[in-house]
């Protein structure tokens, strides 16, 4: 099939076939990072702008590495230090980047829907690197890619997502992606961290992690965002670890080869114990490696987007 989208804004609007195309393309790109010369000329002469309105190291670096391994030129803009402080709007910033003749904008923004707004106003390819509580599509794609690589399939798997579901774009993108590919998703968290309408997205809800882990093939452990600590609804750290933390003892009661994932950065002793984070079930660092292949695939596909109506000639 042809990839026809100029932007990647979220997994909600993607079809199963489109998600599978990204995963298959990423599989081919993974080999590039194992070469002596870790670079292919596919995006030579293209300029990728990382436009980040929220602090991020790992996602930004992952996109930067991905773009560079495709031979693109990369420019990083940390919006906190830019003319945004002087009052420039997102759309104006986007149009300026377009006027610089860049080709792809990778955008991270605190407001849900910001990448979609940008995509409507510029002709460049826009890739969502996380917007508000809405979506973080490439993170979910790399989680799913890692699952598929480890277990050989996605369909029929039972995946538990534990942590602050309410404030998590990672959880939302994972629920969309996993459900479309036929996995069963269970979200597990204290009641106040479960958003309304999550069941309508196709996930089941549990407030008992031991119950949720029974028969699960994988658990995706979200970071507890204690920087939001000021909110009254937030649990206390030790209490959270006791009730929801992923520990060796808890895993003893789960499937022996359960996969443990975490989007990072990890808070040891809060949502996950060190033993588990560094243990045999953990694929946390493999996720980082796979993130590069997935982001290479996404950058490549949006840059090569084709109108389906065009004739196929060679």
């Amino acid at each position, binding site marked *: 099939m042809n990839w026809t989208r100029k932007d990647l804004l979220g997994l909600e609007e993607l079809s199963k076939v489109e998600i599978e195309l990204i995963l298959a393309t990423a599989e*081919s790109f993974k080999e590039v990072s194992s*070469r002596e010369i870790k670079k292919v000329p*596919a995006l030579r002469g293209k300029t990728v702008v990382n436009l980040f309105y929220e602090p991020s190291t790992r996602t930004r670096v992952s996109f930067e590495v991905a773009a560079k391994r495709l031979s693109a030129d990369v420019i990083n803009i940390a919006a906190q230090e830019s003319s945004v402080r002087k009052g420039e709007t997102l759309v104006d910033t986007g149009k300026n980047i377009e006027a610089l003749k860049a080709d792809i904008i990778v955008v991270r923004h605190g407001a849900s829907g910001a990448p979609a707004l940008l995509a409507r106003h510029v002709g460049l390819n826009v890739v969502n690197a996380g917007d508000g509580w809405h979506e973080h599509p490439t993170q979910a794609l790399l989680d799913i890619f890692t699952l598929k690589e480890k277990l050989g399939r996605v369909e029929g798997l039972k995946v538990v997502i534990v942590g602050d579901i309410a404030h998590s774009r990672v959880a939302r993108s994972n629920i969309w992606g996993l459900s479309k590919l036929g996995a069963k998703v269970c979200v597990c968290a204290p009641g106040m961290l479960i958003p309304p309408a999550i069941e309508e997205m196709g996930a089941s809800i549990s407030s008992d992690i031991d119950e949720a882990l029974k028969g699960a093939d994988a658990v995706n452990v979200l970071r507890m965002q204690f920087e939001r600590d000021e909110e009254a609804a937030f649990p206390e750290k030790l209490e959270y670890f006791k009730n929801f933390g992923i520990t060796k003892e808890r895993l003893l009661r789960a499937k022996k080869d359960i996969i443990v994932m975490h989007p990072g950065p990890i808070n040891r002793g809060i949502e996950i114990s060190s033993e588990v984070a560094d243990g045999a079930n953990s694929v946390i660092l493999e996720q980082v490696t796979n993130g590069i292949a997935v982001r290479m695939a996404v950058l490549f596909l949006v840059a*090569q987007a*084709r109108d389906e109506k065009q004739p196929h000639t*060679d």
Partner: protein
Amino acid sequence: MEKAKILDKEAVARSLTRIAHEIVEKNKGVDNLCLVGIRNRGVYLAQRLAVDIKRIENKDVPVGILDITLYRDDLTMISAQPVVHKTEIDFDIEGKVVVLVDDVLYTGRTIRAALDAMIDFGRPKSIQLAVLVDRGHRELPIRADYAGKNIPTAQNETVEVRLEEADDKDEVVIIEKHP
């Protein structure tokens, strides 16, 4: 429209056997040799050459798979979206004689891309080229070291190599495109 059959099953097999002999002769054995097939049909041909070489020399030569999509010079021009497949070269090509294998040699642009890709994998001692069909019309200064058959063609014709592994039969045909 199918215009002519250039090679049948037996002729394809004979061509490959001859190329295998030529590879062994030119390189005085196969000790330092590896084969790299260019996706898709070059891969099947490389695997068949490895079997022929084994029969002649009683030695295994490693066979790699190369996908050149990421090295194409026409990525932004072609309207059909290219699909990226895996490259699988799980041996070291440093200091080796690499024989690239493809089905049809035409403009030479695929081979140009393959040469760039190979050099990203290391520094081979030399790179040679084996093709089943050379149909002419080169756009770059590239030639084959081993060719199954030279076929003069017109630009409005295509040469189609069909192989059992992908197409259920072995044959090479010329197809005339609609004007």
